[in-house]
């Protein structure tokens, strides 16, 4: 059986969504399977146009910090979140959207980028995904 990495993307902060997608792509690139479970603030990133909407986890400075980090990333030629998500999907990465978060936050399926989402699920889905995973992370 192919080894698997399962990541919980709980945070919607820009830097942490970068981490989740880089790790997911990294796992796929090393020949593993990967799943990312988007929940709470992380789920906001699956909304249409929401991928890079989050603030920085530190030094956001009302958006000034985020602007500075983004311009530094551009200079360093770091891939955009859209490219990372598209690559993740192209390499067979799985995206799971948390149904409870949708209920709590009143998010409807049609507000989400449904072409990215493979499955809607809750804690049981995550546990079943993670129980035979080699790597599992909470971000």
């Amino acid at each position, binding site marked *: 059986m192919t080894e698997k990495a399962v990541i919980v993307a709980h945070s919607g902060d820009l830097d942490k969504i970068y981490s989740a997608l*880089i790790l997911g*792509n*990294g796992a*796929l*690139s*090393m*020949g593993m399977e990967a799943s990312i479970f988007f929940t709470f603030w992380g789920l906001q990133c699956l909304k249409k146009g929401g991928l890079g909407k989050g603030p920085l986890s530190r030094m956001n400075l009302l958006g000034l910090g985020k602007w500075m980090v983004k311009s530094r990333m551009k200079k*360093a*030629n*770091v*891939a955009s979140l859209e490219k*990372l998500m598209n*690559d993740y999907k*192209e*390499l067979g990465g799985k995206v799971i959207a948390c149904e409870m978060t949708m209920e709590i936050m009143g998010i409807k399926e049609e507000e989400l980028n449904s072409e990215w989402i493979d499955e809607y699920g809750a804690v049981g889905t995550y546990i079943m995904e993670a129980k035979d995973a080699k790597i599992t992370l909470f971000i």
Partner: protein
Amino acid sequence: MTETNIDVRGQTCPVPLVECRKAIRKASPGDEIIIQGTHPASKKEIPMACEAMGIEVVEVDETDDKEWKIRIKR
């Protein structure tokens, strides 16, 4: 048998690894892929990924100080 060239010079983590993986998925057994890049960590990590997937690394050319070229065989 085909040969695919991938140019990831100037690209940073995780793009060289991802582009390599994409090319491997598209290749047929026996096909060769040549990846050219500048990202230092990927020079080590692409052969690591190939080893993990049981793919042969034919050659790692690092004659240039900043650039490397890796030839792999699906």
